[in-house]
């Protein structure tokens, strides 16, 4: 009797039949019916129509039936939320059951029912279960908190479940601790609520020894996020977790390796402890390679990272990476990669004989990779080059088409690394000319012929044979052919003139490809103008190619080593790209901020003024009360008229009650400020900005007054056209490790848009073309507004300046640091990856000017906790006006100014392109002390990230 009987159907229709059976009086029949329903569910059949009937079976003392009904509920509750409520009573009752199994089952299932309405009923039973006397119930409840958080994070925080979870970390039962850790880390991933501290670490380390293998993985992963206070603590953690390396579960082993790799960084590099620790690391990793192939694969991807970071750990273990013929292909490929990384002089002979063996295998991709690997060995280990070349020659003799082609490609690289050493083999290569049909192999062969034209007697004939089919060739081959023929001509001008003319005309007249045409013209011009110069250019000495071309970028490598054992480490991609977008806080919160902004502005300018004054002022704090702020505004406006703002004595403050009248009256006086060229402004730029400011109309006085408050609004309109501070270009890619591409750049804001200014320098021998650029998801959704267009190829030693307009409407994902942007740059040679931290100020939007009232309300609304204070140096002795105008130029808008007790207080607002608003208060001593105090506030603390540095940079420039 098997379960397949549940799949038999009858004439009347399955659902009907089941319905009758579910409502049967006989227990046995009922149970069988529910089993049938579950059986249909497991194969994906929709049996949701039976919902009420199945729920009816829930109230039973038969545990199996109960479990089956629960299984059904978990799947279908979401589709029938109203009916799911029917089940609540039973759950609540079951949570009180004397049998812990039933209690746990109820709380577990309740958490899995993802229906909003049920969650309210869940809280009380869950709280009770978290303090249950039975550890099994507690551990189930811990997981339930994570489930609840997934549905309703706010509820979890409000109801204090996070604290309860935190308490469970001190539970006597290690399994409960492990589950609490798992739940906490899942919650923390979404939003950091609890930080791992040294006290917690101790608890975790104690639980580590006693909990289940899965719990150990959770605990180790949590530990990897902890930064020990000092060396001693790091060493202590290492000692306590290193026994886990001998665990039978591969996940435990790899998580242990992760924590150890991370902690090793903290210890002094040459200590004995590290030596003994690294010795311990090798055997467990080797053991992983005798596990199931899937485990081997993950292990190999991680070992690839580890050997890049610490090559010495596995340097003795070359042999375990030797490929067995029945390894799955994905394991073979990875083993090969690691073998090349470990290849060095002492083991190169072994590696080569293995690689040669692999090159005769059946799988084409694997064979190709093996041949390439031989070439890489030659380039990496100089002593082996001769042997590698001999091996490659032997492989060419096999005449297997794809082997020959791969061999030609790698031999070209060997020639470039060791010029004038192995040219004797050219004749053998030439014999195989006809078999080459892949563009890369053809281009490589043509390059070889051109480069060594003087030693190949029939070079002209060989090249001519290629030229005959010029139009059918791939661009890569055409370009190479053009260059090689020119080389040939420069070396043997007498008998190849005709050939070179033919190629040049083919390239310039018959080709649609701009790269090819341009290169053709350049050669033509060079050859006709100054053959000697042409010789210097075309036959210039080439830089040697670098040894290892596929190493990961060091910062990415460091990042990945901290995430060993994760998906990121398997894909060798930054961990941040694996976070689900919906969890990025910036995007989630942005709409709120936007809504708030519109709220504020829609209430009207004029009307709001009386109300504003009527609002009772909060007392004390850094926030200026509304009344005084208005008074200050008035005062500010008078300051320029009264003389230098810094030296102005505090003018008598207007009575708060009569504010509106006074304001309006004063509004008429505003033009005098705007038009006053005599106002002593230290910064000529500011003066320039101020001079043409349109006089404010008296009618709009209040509005303008607020706008002008800090000398802002009027200037802002004009100053918008002025460039703010722009960070100088920094090097993003260096030529040495990026195949000759040197990239310097900076992201700047000008004319109200973001630009990426780049200088591309070609330090390679060949022209670089086909540039393209792509941005990874980032915090502000920065993306190119248009494709990168570089009209002509960048020729060797040439620099091209490009300015690429950027938009902020791309996909958003929170990065760390916030302004980090990962960029991929492609050219005809390769794709390069780099990351740069964009200065935050490029994200300051032009419409960031905030109204005073709005500013005030927001300032009050944001909790103290979100305020950050910094000290900033006023190195250039700027006055308050200078500061305001400098900030203004960078879209940091002055909302208000006032001076109190010998201090000048400046209030500014910033609005990011994603509508998040930052408020700042800048305190400066009127006495001219060189330090300024900056307080920043925002609803989103993350948005404050290194803004103080931005301020500093603005002031220093």
């Amino acid at each position: 009797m098997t379960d397949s009987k549940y799949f038999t159907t009858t004439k009347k229709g399955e659902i009907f039949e089941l319905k009758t059976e579910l409502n049967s009086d006989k227990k046995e029949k009922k149970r069988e019916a529910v089993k049938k329903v579950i059986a249909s569910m497991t194969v994906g059949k929709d049996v949701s129509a039976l919902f009420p009937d199945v729920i009816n079976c829930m109230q039973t003392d038969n545990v199996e039936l109960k479990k089956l009904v629960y299984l059904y509920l978990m799947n279908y509750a979401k589709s029938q939320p109203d009916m799911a409520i029917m089940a609540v009573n039973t759950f609540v009752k079951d949570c009180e059951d004397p049998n812990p199994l039933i209690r746990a089952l109820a709380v577990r299932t309740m958490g899995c029912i993802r229906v909003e309405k049920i969650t309210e009923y869940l809280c009380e039973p869950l709280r009770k279960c978290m303090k249950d006397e039975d550890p099994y119930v507690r551990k189930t409840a811990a997981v339930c908190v994570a489930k609840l958080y997934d549905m309703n994070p706010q509820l979890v925080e409000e109801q204090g479940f996070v604290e309860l979870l935190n308490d469970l970390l001190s539970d006597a039962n290690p399994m409960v601790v492990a589950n609490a850790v798992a739940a906490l880390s899942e919650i923390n991933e979404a939003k950091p609520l609890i930080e791992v501290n040294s006290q917690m670490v101790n608890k975790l380390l104690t639980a580590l020894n006693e909990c289940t293998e899965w719990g150990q993985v959770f605990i180790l992963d949590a530990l990897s996020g902890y930064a020990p206070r000092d060396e001693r603590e790091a060493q202590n953690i290492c000692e306590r977790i290193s026994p886990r390396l001998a665990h039978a579960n591969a996940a435990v082993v790899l998580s242990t390796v992760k924590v150890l790799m991370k902690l090793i960084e903290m210890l002094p590099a040459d200590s004995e402890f590290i030596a003994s620790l690294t010795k311990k690391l090798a055997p467990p990793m080797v053991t992983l390679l005798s596990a199931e192939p899937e485990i081997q694969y993950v292990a190999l991807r991680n070992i690839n990272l580890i050997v890049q970071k610490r090559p010495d750990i596995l340097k003795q273990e070359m042999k375990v990476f030797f490929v067995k013929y029945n390894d799955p292909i994905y394991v073979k490929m990875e083993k090969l990669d690691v073998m090349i990384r470990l290849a060095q002089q002492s083991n190169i002979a072994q590696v080569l004989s293995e690689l040669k063996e692999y090159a005769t295998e059946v799988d084409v991709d694997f064979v190709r990779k093996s041949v390439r690997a031989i070439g890489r060995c030659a380039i990496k280990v100089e002593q082996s080059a001769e042997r590698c070349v001999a091996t490659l020659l032997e492989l060419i003799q096999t005449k297997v088409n794809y082997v020959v082609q791969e061999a030609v490609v790698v031999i070209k690289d060997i020639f470039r690394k060791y010029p004038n050493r192995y040219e004797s083999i050219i004749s053998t290569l030439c014999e195989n000319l006809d078999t080459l049909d892949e563009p890369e192999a053809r281009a490589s062969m043509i390059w070889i012929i051109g480069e060594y034209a003087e030693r190949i007697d029939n070079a002209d004939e060989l090249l001519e044979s290629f030229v005959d089919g010029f139009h059918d060739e791939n661009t890569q081959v055409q370009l190479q052919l053009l260059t090689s023929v020119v080389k040939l001509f420069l070396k043997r001008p007498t008998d190849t003139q005709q050939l070179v003319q033919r190629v040049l005309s083919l390239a310039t007249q018959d080709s649609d490809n701009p790269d090819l045409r341009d290169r053709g013209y350049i050669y033509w011009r060079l050859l006709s103008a100054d053959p000697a110069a042409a010789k210097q250019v075309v036959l210039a000495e080439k830089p040697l190619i670098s040894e290892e071309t596929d190493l990961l970028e060091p910062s990415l490598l460091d990042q990945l080593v901290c995430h060993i054992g994760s998906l990121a480490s398997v894909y060798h991609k930054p961990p941040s790209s694996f976070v689900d977008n919906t969890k990025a806080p910036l995007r989630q919160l942005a709409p709120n901020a936007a809504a708030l902004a519109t709220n504020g502005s829609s209430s009207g300018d004029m009307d709001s003024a009386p109300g504003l004054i009527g609002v009772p002022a909060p007392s004390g704090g850094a926030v200026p009360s509304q009344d005084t702020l208005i008074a200050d505004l008035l005062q500010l406006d008078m300051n320029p008229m009264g003389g230098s703002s810094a030296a102005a004595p505090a003018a008598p403050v207007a009575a708060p009650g009569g504010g509106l009248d006074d304001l309006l009256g004063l509004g008429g006086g505003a033009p005098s400020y705007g038009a006053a060229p005599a106002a002593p402004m230290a910064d000529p730029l500011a003066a320039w900005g101020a001079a043409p400011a349109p006089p404010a109309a008296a009618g709009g006085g209040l509005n303008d007054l607020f706008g002008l408050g800090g000398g802002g609004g009027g200037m802002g309109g004009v100053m918008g056209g002025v460039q703010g501070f722009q960070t100088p270009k920094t090097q993003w890619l260096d030529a040495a490790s990026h195949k000759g591409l040197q990239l310097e750049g900076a992201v700047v804001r000008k004319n109200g848009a973001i630009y990426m200014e780049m200088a591309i320098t070609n330090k390679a021998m060949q022209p670089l073309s086909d540039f393209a650029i792509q941005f990874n998801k980032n915090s502000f959704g920065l993306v190119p507004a248009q494709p990168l267009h570089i009209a002509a190829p960048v020729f060797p030693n040439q620099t091209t300046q490009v300015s690429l307009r950027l938009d902020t409407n791309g996909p958003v994902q929170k990065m760390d640091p916030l302004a980090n942007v990962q960029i991929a740059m492609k050219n005809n040679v390769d794709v390069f990856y780099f990351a740069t931290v964009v200065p935050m100020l490029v994200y300051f939007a032009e419409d960031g000017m905030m109204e005073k009232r709005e500013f005030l309300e927001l300032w009050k609304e944001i909790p103290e906790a979100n305020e950050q204070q910094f000290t900033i140096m006023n190195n250039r002795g700027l006055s308050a006006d200078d500061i305001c105008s400098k900030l203004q130029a960078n879209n940091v808008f002055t909302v208000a100014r006032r001076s109190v007790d010998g201090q000048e207080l400046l209030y500014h607002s910033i609005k990011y392109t994603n509508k998040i608003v930052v408020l700042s208060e800048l305190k400066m001593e009127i006495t001219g002390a060189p330090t300024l105090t900056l307080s920043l506030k925002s609803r989103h603390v993350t948005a404050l990230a290194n803004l103080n540095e931005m301020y500093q940079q603005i002031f220093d420039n």
Partner: protein
Amino acid sequence: MLNSLFIVNTSGDVILEKHWKSVIHRSICDYFFDAQKKASCPEDVPPIIATPHHYLISVYHSQIFLVAVSTEETPPLMVIEFLHRVVATLTSYFDECSDSAIKDNCVMVFELLDEMLDNGYPLVTELNILQDLIKPPNFLRNIANQVTGRTNISEVLPSGQLSNIPWRRHGVKYTNNEAYFDVIEEIDAIIDKQGATVCSEIQGYIDCCSRLTGMPDLTMTLVNPRLLDDVSFHPCVRFKRWENERVLSFVPPDGNFRLLSYHIATQNIVAIPIYVRHSILLKGGVGSRIELTVGPKQSMGKVLEEVVVEMTMPKAVQNCNLTPSHGKYSFDPASKLLQWNVGKIELGKPPTLKGSVTVSGTAVVEPPPISVKFKINQLAASGLKVNRLDMYGENYKPFKGVKYITKAGRFQIRT
């Protein structure tokens, strides 16, 4: 961790699906089926596949794939280990983890999966406890249940679940108390054309079958514990004692379990107990021939048993016409597998297999590598030996036994 699990067979049908968080539609498996189509054989399907919103992590076992779906960053090894644990559990419940076994017991598989994972976290993976929670199917019990109306599902919480030794049940009782240990060593090796060893290593296990009453505390000492420098232990082994005294001290789980596994690395020289001489020529037309000879080498006086020689012939090979001096041989023209079942190698003339082969085409074909299986009883190739086994905590005298077996692991000879 993992959101859903799909069990899929090689012909691309979803046999079973289970969701722990919200339901993910089975169309997600299409990505997997695409990868499956691309792979030349089921073993070559990559274990981790990224799709735009999900990650598919799979393991392959006897014609079925277990495909786990995750939506977020998760340690892949944990998922893979868990999936292997599912396979092991199903195998122990239904004797095999195959398409038909799952279909026949789908409700029980579903119940088991629900016990094993909660919200994507592994919950109960210890077989001992699972068997307490859900009794394995068995004919007698089925009949009894029919009569008494009882079920296979336990109504009370298993006692071992949360003790400090979660792997052992309480209240175990046997009339005959016995503990058997199998020291099994598998030799992995690659031998090159000339018969020289390219690399060789030993993968060893100590498997245990314990049927002991109560809470026995066992101590095992080895004659030469120094051999083991790369060991993975069952959680029951007290690591501190091993580290300090090189003694294995543990409270064993009930039933069969793997006490420890070890790895003896390539630096140590491993004795290769078998040799295969080969002379193979494969080319189109006439004249293709195969000649294989196997014999013992450094086998320390022990007899090689269950010797099997296998080669997967290239596609061009159409048929073989061979004569074995010992044992039987078979050639499957569809899978191109040539299998020579030598059996026991007695003293005397070494067994040979020779004859002619039909190869299509005209080109010379590279001969395939040879894979060899064998077994040697009463020998641990590394020389590992159990010294003594003592029991504390209980008052009876158990029957104890140790058996040594050396087997071929992945033993390959290049041609």
